[in-house]
Each structure stands twice: as C-alpha cells, then as structure tokens.
C-alpha cells in the first residue's frame, strides 16, 4: 500500500484516524497503531513482515541486554553484535547480487527480494541501539512503544529516518492539537499534489527524453529527473510528516528547498536532512568529524560519502554519486568556501549544475551510460545541438518546467504566507480552495491510473 493509493487515502487513513480518536487510552491507541502499521507493511508483501518482526525483536532485546550489563566491555560486545546483525541483514538482502556480480565477478544472480523500507527501518533501529549505548536514551521496556517507533506506517516505507531520542518522548502519550492535525492534513495534501501533479508528470517527461542523443535532449533529461526526484521524495516526506502530525507525532522537515542552496554543503543541509543527520551523528562524529588532522578529515568525509552512496543502492553509479559529493565537499572546505560565501549567485548556479550532473549518475544503469549523458551535456558524443522530438517535448512541457522550477523554490511558501497575512479570512478561504482543487485533481490522476511508484521505494 502506498500513500498515493485510493485504498490508503479513503479507507486506511480515515479508519486509523477514527480509531485513534475514539480509543480511550494511550496504550490502546499505540496497540492499534502498531497493528495497523504491520497491516500496512504486510499489504503488498506478507513475507517481509516476518523480517520486520524478527528485527524488532532482535534490537529490542539487544538494548535490554546492554542495559542489563554492568561490564562496559560486555556492553560494547552486545552493541557491536547488535549493529553487525543489522548490517548483515541489510547486506544480504540489498547487496548480495552486487557483491557476487560487480565485486567478485561471479556472474551469479540470486533471487532475493529487497523488502520495502529495509534501509530505512534498519537505520532507525541502529539509531536506537547507538542512542542506548551512548546514553542518549534509556532502553525501552515497552515492546509496543518500540514497535511503534520502528514500524509506524507514516515513516516505515521511505522515512524520514527519525532518530530514537527525537521520538522517544512521543511514543507514550501524545496530545493531538486540532490545529496540528489540520496542519498535518494540509501537509499531506501538499505532498500528494507534489507527487501526483508534478513528480509523475516529470517522470513521463524523463522517460520521453531517455532516448535523445542531442545536447538539448541531455539537458532536458537531466532537468526532468532533477525535478521528478525532488517532488517525488519531498512529496512523500511531506505526506509522511503530515500523517505523523495527524497522530500527534512531530517529525522534523526532511527537505528545505534544496535547489536554492548556494553550495554543495548548503544543499546537503536541505536534501534528505534525516539521512544526512544520521550519517553525521552515527558515523562522521564517531570517526572524529572535523576535529582531526586534515588527512583524517578527508578520510572521514570519503567514508561517509561512500556509505551514503552505497546506502542508496547496490551499484557503482550510487557509490560514484556519493564520492562525487564527497569530492565537492572537500573542494569547498579547502578552496571554495570564502569565494562561495561572497558570490552567492555564482554559488547557486554552480550548485545547481553540480547537482544536475550528480542526478545523471543516480539515474543511470551503469557508469558508462552516465558518462555518455554527461558528455552530451557539453556536446561530446551528441548527434546534434537539438532534435525535433526534444524541441517538441520542450514546447509542450514549458509550463510544467516553469511550475517545477518555481515550486522547487520557496516561492509558494512565501506567496501563501503573504496571502494569509494580507487577506486574513478571505486568504484562508482561497488557500483552502486551492488545496481542495489540488486534492481533487490528484484523485482524478490516481483514478486515471496515471501514477508512478515512489522513487525512493527502491532504497
């Protein structure tokens, strides 16, 4: 089941909200949410639920074992074993074929299905073990609350990867403020609009430009994917955070208009924020962060970006994508920081270009294809500067591209704030109408079958 399906919007979510409203106690609400979350997760793949349950049990018990240990060395052993088993599960399900074919060149393809959300919920569980080990949180003695943290249907499929200590206090009793619930519903609608009306249309444009061999075609291909993945993933995140708000959970934003960033470092403080924070808190800082010699700092940056790339997928293109950003992080740290801070317009254009090229690595099936497209951006290997079909696509999609560019910036947010401040009650009515019309259009697109699966489901 996905957030942009009719089953979810008109059956599952309303049922969950009603039950949450009418159930008498916090405990009953939590049990209900856990049961519904398991149902949500098992909907498309019941076998995957078994793995989820086993991983919940393993990590819950590991934290209890750590808490019961007086000896620090034994506590560390339990922690390391706990982490290793999580990484082994991730490795087997996600990286077996990559290791067999692309690392060991054994030309063997095993039939192993990657469970939805595996990377996301295992990282949440690693966060839990690390928080307990480092003393940021106490081990949970409530299996229902722990299960809710891991499996809450609002975030299990594609995040955000909420760190345990950020959610710990919300797992017991939650107050649902009507204003918050309303904001949650609004955010969910906004996310649905981003996904159905923008991301899916850019997906169609991206598919249509895939065969182009011209310079213009390569640019349109890159731009279409850049906008598709932003609206797809940020749309999903908005829906996830909105759902959380409707049930009394407060999760931090996962995106902050990344395409207005003035540097690569700024970009990564705005894109998939929960993942960046996870790697910062649980890998970069334990390695020493930036409080080390230059040599070790470079090592730390490359390790973090290697892992970030690898997390996204079992392919050399993802690893190269991660290391590419690592290289630009180092370049900015050692050479460009002052220049970019003084020349923000240049910084913005430079960041957009770096990010566009990065997405070409991300969406290509192999490194050769990626370099082929990147070459065509500057005319290398291109058949022409422009071709008829690309020009046709550009002519027919210029308005979509304009909307994509405008809405990827903070223009809509500022416009909404300005309308509400200036027109007060009338402004509320108009904005409500805009969201309602947007929602109805989304449903029309979903009913029409013209929707694509979420991109980050693949991770």
């Amino acid at each position: 089941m996905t957030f942009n399906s009719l089953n979810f919007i008109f059956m599952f979510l309303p049922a969950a909200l009603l039950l949450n409203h009418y159930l008498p106690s916090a405990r009953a609400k939590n049990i209900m949410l856990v049961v519904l979350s398991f149902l949500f997760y098992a909907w498309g793949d019941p076998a995957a639920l078994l793995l989820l349950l086993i991983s919940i049990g393993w990590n819950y018990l590991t934290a209890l074992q750590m808490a019961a240990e007086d000896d620090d060395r034994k506590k560390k052993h339990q922690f390391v074993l706990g982490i290793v088993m999580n990484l082994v599960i991730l490795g087997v399900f996600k990286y077996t074929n990559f290791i067999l074919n692309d690392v060991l060149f054994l030309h063997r393809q095993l039939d192993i299905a990657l469970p939805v959300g595996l990377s996301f919920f295992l990282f949440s569980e690693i966060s839990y073990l690390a928080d307990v080990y480092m003393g940021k949180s106490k081990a949970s003695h409530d299996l229902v609350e722990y299960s809710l943290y891991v499996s809450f249907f609002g975030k299990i499929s594609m995040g955000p990867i909420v760190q345990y200590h950020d959610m710990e206090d919300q797992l017991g009793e939650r107050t649902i403020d009507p204003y918050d619930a309303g904001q949650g519903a609004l955010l969910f609608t906004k996310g649905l609009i981003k996904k159905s009306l923008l991301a899916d249309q850019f997906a169609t444009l991206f598919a249509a430009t895939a065969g182009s061999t011209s310079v213009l075609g390569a640019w349109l291909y890159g731009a279409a994917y850049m906008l598709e993945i932003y609206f797809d993933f940020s749309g999903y995140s908005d829906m996830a955070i909105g759902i959380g708000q409707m049930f009394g959970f407060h999760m931090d934003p996962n995106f902050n208009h990344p395409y207005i960033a003035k540097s690569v470092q700024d970009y990564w403080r705005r894109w998939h924020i929960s993942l960046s924070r996870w790697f910062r808190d649980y890998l970069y800082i334990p390695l020493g962060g930036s409080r080390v010699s230059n040599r070790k700092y470079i090592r730390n940056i490359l390790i973090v970006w290697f892992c970030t790339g690898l997390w996204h997928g079992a392919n050399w293109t993802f690893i190269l994508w991660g290391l590419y950003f690592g290289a630009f992080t180092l370049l900015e740290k050692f050479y460009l920081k002052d220049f970019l801070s003084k020349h923000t317009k240049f910084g913005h254009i430079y960041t957009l270009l770096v990010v566009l090229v990065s997405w070409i690595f991300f969406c290509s099936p192999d490194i050769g294809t990626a370099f082929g497209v990147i070459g065509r951006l500057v005319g290398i290997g291109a058949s022409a500067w422009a071709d008829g079909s690309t020009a046709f696509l550009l002519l027919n999609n210029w308005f979509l591209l304009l909307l994509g560019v405008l809405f990827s910036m903070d223009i809509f947010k500022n416009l909404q704030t300005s309308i509400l401040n200036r027109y007060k009650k009338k402004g509320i009515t108009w904005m409500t109408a805009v969201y309602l019309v947007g929602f109805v259009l989304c449903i029309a697109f979903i009913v029409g079958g013209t929707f694509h699966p979420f991109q980050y489901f693949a991770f």
Partner: protein
Amino acid sequence: MSKRTITILRYVFFALIIGVLAMNLHQPADCNKSVNTVTKQTMASVNTKSLEQQNNQEIKRFLQLDASMYDGIVYYKDSDTMKADELLIVKFKDHSQAEDFNDKMQTRIDSQKKIFAGYAPKEADKLDAAVVDVRANYALYAVSKNADTFDQQFRAALK
C-alpha cells in the same frame, strides 16, 4: 525480564535471523530438462486454446529478446489482440542473463499496462498480477488469469 531470559530470547532471535537469511540465500539448482518439456508441464491441464506460439522474430518484436542468446525459449501470445495474455519460458545459457530478463519483462509489463489501462481494465488487472519467476537457469513470464497456476506448474516441472 531477567538477564537470563533476555539472553535466551536473544539466542532465539539470532537463530531466526540466520534462518531467514539462509532461506533467502538458498537457491534452486539448475534444471537439465529441455525447454519444451518444461513448457508442456507448465501448460498442462490449463485451457490455452487462445494462446498461439510465436516465432523468434515476434519474440524480438514484442519482448526485445534475442532468442539465439538463450539455451531455449518458448513464447505464447493470445491470438486476440484485445487480450494481454502471454506466456514465456526461457532457459538461460548463463545465470547472468537473469537480471536483463527481469528488466525486459518489467519494461514489457509497463508498456502493456499503458496500452490496456485506458480501455480494458480487466486486462490491466492481469498485468498487475503478472508473474516473473526466475529459478536458477529457467525463467517464466506469465500474464493470464491462470498466471499463478502456470507458476506452480512451472516450479513443479523444474524438480
């Protein structure tokens, strides 16, 4: 919960994790039967009168597969163009062909869905329930109301 109970339960879950991983890593052995034998057993006792066997050119045309790359390939398609039913069985020369096979079948399913989604929802439903099953050196692709039956008989045929 006492420390002893936690330790015992942890051993249980450790064993469960190893068990789940082992089940997923265990893969079926290669089948030495000919593709015609496997196809016959796959299609047994199912009404396949409307399915017509296609030649290599049509395999290339509809599925973008080069028949000469495989040890054996059999493709059936419904004679009625308004139906999405099709059945494909391939025998790989090399296991590395499986990934490309999966990709091509997914592309086929996606393009067929775009065609049928607008005017033949029942055919589109068949595509949603399409089976792509890779078992060692054999693979099945089936779009049919009997897709699950084909898959069960396919797996039985490989034993």
